[in-house]
Each structure stands twice: as C-alpha cells, then as structure tokens.
C-alpha cells in the first residue's frame, strides 16, 4: 500500500476484499434493476405544446397572445436582460441584479420578432395580410395602439366555438387580418419555423422565440393541468405518475413559501440561497457546526455497529476486575 495508507491504517485489523468481484456483482444487480424498471414503467415522453395545437384547440388564446405581442406592451417587451435593455423588471437579491453584468445577449423585440417578422413571411403567400401590413406600417404609433387596444378588449369578450373565434365588429384597422394571418400560420404548423428561421444561418436549433411565444398562456395552462407550475413543485414533477427530477426538491421547496411565491425577486432570492447552500455543503469540513454535527448525531454508530461492539466489548472485558 502507499506510504500514506500504511501509516493511516497501522494497527487496524484487515479482512480480504475482492474489488473487481464486488464491482461486477453490483453492476449486474444495478443493470438488472434498470432493465426491469424500463420494461415495466417505460419513461415519460409527453409531446410538446405546439403552435398548431394552440391554434386549432385554443384559437382565442392564440389570438390574445399574438395581439399582446403586437401591442408592444407585452411582459416580454420589457423583460430586461438577456432579451431587452429594460431594468424595471430586474430581479434583485440584496440590492444586486446579476442579470445586468452580461446585459442583452439575446435581443428580442417581441412586437417585431414574434409577430411582424412572421407576418412578413405570411404576406408573401397572402395578399390580404400583405395589404394589412402596409396599412399597419403607414399608421402612427398612437393609431396602432388604439387598434390593438380595441381588438384586445374585443378578444376579452369574444367567443370561441368549433375552433373559430367570433369577435364583435369594431374599429380595429388592419389588426384582425394580421392576427388571422398569424392564426393561419399556426394552424398550418408553421409558427415555430417562422419564429426560428434566421436570416444569417441556413438552419438553427435556437428555439428561444418559439418557446417564449406561448409561455404565459397556453404553456402555463397546460403546466397547471399537470401540476408543474412553480407553486405546484414545478419541474420536480413529471406528466403522469413517473418520477421527475425529484433531486431538485431542495430548490423547488422555496417556491412553496408564500413570502417567496409572491415576491417579484423570487428567482434571484432562491438562486442565491441555492448557491449559499451549495457552498455550505462544499465547505462543510471547515464550518464549525457542520463539521462536528456527524459526531453529535451518532448515526455512525449504526453503520459501524460491528466495530463498536468489538471495541467496546474488548474494553469492558479488559476493565473487569481479576479474581
């Protein structure tokens, strides 16, 4: 053995050990367990929520989402880094906002990138949409806001039946034609493609814009229906009865406390707490209370019970008075 091992284990009784045999047997047991679990329970693989699904099954939600982005007043428009320059919604912990360090690294203008750019593609195929876009571009910003506000209000009162949306007549300008163009794009299954396509690259796997599109409404609604919202222990769950990443439980638990659930800085606070706990765990051998805790909680006596029985048995035998 190495000099260090020899010195450390001097005087300790040893027993024979076959590391390779132990490893082979353990691998066999674990592999068998994995195969049995895979055969019996399979694995979770719920399909994604696509624009096509939302357009066909929840067209009103689809139109509301697209109109919200078109208004230029969506939450995403003022999200802050890494998408926008805004700082009003920055999450802070102890007054610090780490997001500002790198700033805007994935710029997204929700109105332009999520609605107007896809509509430019639709306009190539649909003259009505092309004409509506021309009217939109020629209008003043105030006029555009008035149209989207009126249409958005009308959508709040609109009815959905058999995959169709009935909106009351009103002064909406070109907005209904534009929004129906967006809805047709979704129904055709082309929304994600239109959002993901990139002028500079022949293809891309960056799904950021497509992922952000339905995050607030349809995705959130589906997540709630399968108990996956943050306050429902979020991503530690999986669709159905199979286990999810339960090891994120120490992270998810913080979102169950009302004080954090309702905090506008929840993600920054929880993230900072997790970094702190990780550092505590990492440096446990040097932190006064943490390094002594195992000695104070004698669970070790269960694991080493054979050793202690021998040691203490021998010690008590040696103490017995000689007759």
């Amino acid at each position, binding site marked *: 053995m190495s000099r260090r091992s020899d010195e450390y284990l001097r005087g300790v009784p040893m027993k024979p050990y076959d590391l390779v045999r132990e490893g082979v047997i353990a691998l066999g047991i674990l592999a068998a367990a994995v195969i049995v679990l895979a055969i019996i329970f399979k694995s979770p*693989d719920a399909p994604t929520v696509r624009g096509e699904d939302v357009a066909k099954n929840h067209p009103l939600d689809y139109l509301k989402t697209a109109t919200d982005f078109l208004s230029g007043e969506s939450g995403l428009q003022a999200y802050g880094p*890494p998408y926008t320059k805004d700082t009003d919604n920055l999450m802070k912990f102890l007054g610090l906002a*780490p997001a500002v360090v790198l700033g805007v690294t994935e710029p997204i203008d929700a109105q332009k990138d999520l609605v107007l750019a896809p509509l430019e593609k639709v306009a190539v195929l649909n003259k009505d949409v092309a004409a509506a876009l021309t009217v939109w571009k020629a209008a003043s910003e105030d006029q555009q806001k008035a149209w989207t506000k009126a249409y958005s209000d009308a959508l709040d009162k609109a009815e959905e039946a058999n995959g169709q949306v009935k909106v009351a007549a009103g002064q909406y300008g070109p907005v209904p034609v534009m929004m129906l163009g967006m809805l047709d794009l979704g129904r055709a299954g082309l929304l994600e493609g239109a959002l993901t396509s990139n002028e500079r690259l022949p293809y891309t796997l960056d799904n950021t814009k497509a992922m952000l599109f339905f995050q607030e409404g349809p995705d959130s609604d589906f997540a709630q229906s399968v108990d996956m919202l943050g306050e429902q222990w979020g991503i530690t769950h999986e669709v159905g009865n199979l286990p999810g*990443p339960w090891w994120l439980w120490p992270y998810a638990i913080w979102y169950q406390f009302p004080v954090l659930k309702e905090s506008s800085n929840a993600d920054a606070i929880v993230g900072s707490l997790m970094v702190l706990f990780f550092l505590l765990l990492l440096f446990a051998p040097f932190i006064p209370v943490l390094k002594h805790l195992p000695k104070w909680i004698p669970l070790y006596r269960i694991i080493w019970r054979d050793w202690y029985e021998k040691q*203490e048995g021998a010690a008590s035998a040696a103490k017995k008075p000689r007759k």
Partner: protein
Amino acid sequence: MSMTEKLQGYVKDNLTLDDALPTKLPIYVNSVAYLFGVFNLCALVMIVLTGLIMAIFGPNWYHVNATGKFFHSLHFWSVQLLFAFLVLHLATKYFLGAFRDGRWKTWMIGVLTLGAAILSGFTGYLSASNWSSQWHAIEAKDAMNAMGVGGFFFTTNYSQVLTLHVAVFPALVVVLVVIHVLFIRHEGPVKPYPAKGEAQK
C-alpha cells in the same frame, strides 16, 4: 530529476496498485452503506453506455423508434437510480464524518461531482425534446436570467443544451468521479469515531 521521474515518485508515494485495486480492507468497512458509492459508479456506467447509444442515433430516435424508446427508458431509470444512490452516498458519508483526517479534498470533489451531475441531469431534461424539455426551458430561463447565467446559457437553445448534455457535463462528471475515486483509493476509508471510553485523538 525529470518531470516524468517526479510524477513517478508522486504516484509511488500516493497511489500504489494495492491502493487502486485493493485485496484487503479495514474490518470496520462492514456495512451496506459502503455500497452506495459503488452503485453510483454502476449507474454512471449505465448512463454513459445508454447515452452513447442514444447519441449515435440522435434525438429523434428515442421518440419514434421502439428500440430508441427502450434505451431512453434505460437512460431515464439509470439517472433516477444514480441520484437515489448519490443522496444516500452523500448522507452516509456526511454522517460518518468521512471528511475527517485530511479527507476534505475527497469530500469537496464529491460535492462538485454532485453539482456537475445536477447540471448534467438538468440539461438532459432540457434536451429530451418533449413537454418536460419545453416547460423546464421556460421555467428555468427566469431563474438563469435572474442569476445572470442567462446571459450565456440559454435553456431554450436546443443546440446548446444538447451539446452541454452529451459532451461538456458528462465529461466533467467523469473527470471529477475519476479524481474522487483516486482520492478515496489513495486515502483509504476513514476510521470510525472513537469508541466509548476511547480517547479522542
């Protein structure tokens, strides 16, 4: 003395073949708790093997092909068992005070491995290209952005999360595990706390 001779000397002093492939152990190593780490290694072997096969056939394979789905399930359950044994391993090592007697490096590398394993598992969920990936990406991006990590790590960028999952984080885990195991073999299992009546050193 050449660098090679110095390295040779260091290895001879710190890790002999007897340490790396031991044929004897202290008698106090006599509990099922010592097997949690072994099962961790076995789960990691299964994860790497099934992951390699899935990487060869690509991400669509395990959604549309029965064999692919089976390998996805093998990978999934290997991960579940890895984390189960990781938690047990971490807890038992902590309550044995396994970081005593100069073993703090082994402990710290073990904790770093846990962190790398969590990142690996997280990017695995992000790259499964199903609803869980979609929702994890949406939910986690806010946390990443709040912490400033979102400036370079985009949970919604499939190419980034996939390459992190199949290359960067697994390599990190394997390297850390190798170092962790070498330290364990070099240092040997920590001695029990003193028995009742035995003097504390």
